């Protein structure tokens, strides 16, 4: 008797569900995506700023999976494909927001010399004594600093720091080399350090 490891078993079950979903079994589709959707929401939530935005991203990702599943040819793990779509949707989602606020995406890698905001510029003048309010303020400042990153830098930074993914996993998700991921990560870290220095000091 051979004992299959959990990953192999999972992949086999995924395959079965995918084939059923491809032939129109909606129950199988739901079962398949609900195996991984928590992580989709986790990635979305760590990338965007509000729960509503996270749900929007989640829905867009799963709709793309629903529409594209018929063409899925098992060239990668289903989860890899799903998270790849998730990172794409996150990046596009931010792009949409940026367009609304009339900011160009072309600044992506070129804007690295822009001046960081100082914490004292954004914190209220009066001393904030309440710890809760202070924490909220720090959270807002972290989000503000994340917003200053390019979409890809932000994606790499959040996957790494909030979700704990390794470089190779991030490279697989974003369909680029580990070297490129490193470049985004180091630039993002440098910029975050500059912008949040007053927070963590």
């Amino acid at each position, binding site marked *: 008797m051979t004992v299959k490891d959990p990953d192999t078993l999972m992949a086999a079950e995924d395959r079965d569900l995918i084939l059923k979903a491809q032939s129109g079994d909606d129950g199988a589709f739901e079962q398949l995506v609900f195996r991984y959707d928590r992580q989709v*929401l986790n990635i979305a939530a760590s990338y965007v700023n509000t729960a509503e935005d996270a749900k929007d991203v989640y829905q867009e990702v799963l709709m793309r999976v629903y529409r594209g599943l018929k063409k899925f040819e098992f060239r990668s793990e289903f989860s890899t494909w799903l998270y790849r779509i998730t990172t794409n949707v996150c990046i596009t989602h931010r792009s949409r927001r940026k367009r609304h606020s009339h900011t160009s995406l072309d600044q992506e890698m070129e804007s690295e010399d822009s001046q960081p905001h100082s914490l004292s510029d954004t914190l209220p003048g009066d001393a904030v004594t309440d710890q809760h309010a202070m924490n909220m303020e720090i959270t807002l400042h972290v989000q503000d600093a994340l917003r200053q990153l390019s979409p890809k830098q932000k994606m790499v930074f959040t996957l790494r720091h909030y979700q704990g993914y390794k470089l190779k996993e991030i490279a697989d998700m974003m369909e680029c080399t580990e070297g490129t991921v490193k470049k985004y990560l180091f630039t993002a*870290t440098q910029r975050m350090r500059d912008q949040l220095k007053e927070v963590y000091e």
Partner: protein
Amino acid sequence: MNHQPYREWIELGLSDELSAQERLQLETHLVSCAECRTVREEIQSLHATVTKNAGVEVTESLLMEARQQFRVALRHERTKVSAWQKVTEFVNAVFAPPMKLAAGGAFMLALGFLGGYMMFSGQSSQNGNSVTQQMTDETELTRGESQVANVKFIDGDPSDGSIEFSFDAITPVQVKGSPNDPGVQNLLVKALTNEENPGVRLRAVSAMTSPMVNIQFGNTDDQVKTALITAMKRDENPGVRKEALKALSKMPFDEDIKQGLISVLSNDKNEGMRVDAINVLSSAKGELKSTDEELLDMLRQKIESDNNGYVRLRARAVLQEVRQ
């Protein structure tokens, strides 16, 4: 001296992505380089600050709400697909030779009935089983005859005449049980989120909130509340949205319901819905906090710009009461 490789190793070392040799070299360098030690401390502090202050927390309730909203979106998607299928079927019917069409249709139907009878008579569907497992002993289930629909030919082999096809065997199941039964609630939630007919969705909300259900005591499952919030915010039918809001107003007021009401007040174009939402918020004013900036902002916005006079008036009153 070029410190850049060490800076990169510091970053990679945080997630244990250095080889043993690289780690050793880094540690050796750090002993003698105060500047790089400072960088490492800064990166560690940054990591701690950032992870402690993640913006959105993914709770079970958020996941359930996302799933409900996705189900609603999927239902719309399927409706769009089936409408397109109807158009293509119509075009095919117009342009295909009538005799061929009639013979093909009759053949498919006969095969479908035969296959359905042989394979599914006396058996229940998988979904039916999963629902049955959740029913209590008091809940009665009655199954009807299987019906065959959506017959599709997959392949045919001219050499021996064998064919391959698929079809949906639908077995009607009649359920009689308490609306407090988790299995029955599960079915009602599915009806509310998946059914295309708004009348059915309306009946599902009514059944969930019948006087026999213990929702006013907070005993209902979270999935019912989440489904009702989703329906209140997203259902395209105002009647269903209104009924869902009414149902939620009977439940214990909490953060999820408050967020749902804020969403209705901010986004629902139906004035009746906004009036109901502000009334529910007003009646729950004891639960509202003067530090809730999101709520206060929304109320201020309503006072300034809602086109309904009553909503403006009530928003002003709620704002004053919350501030006191």
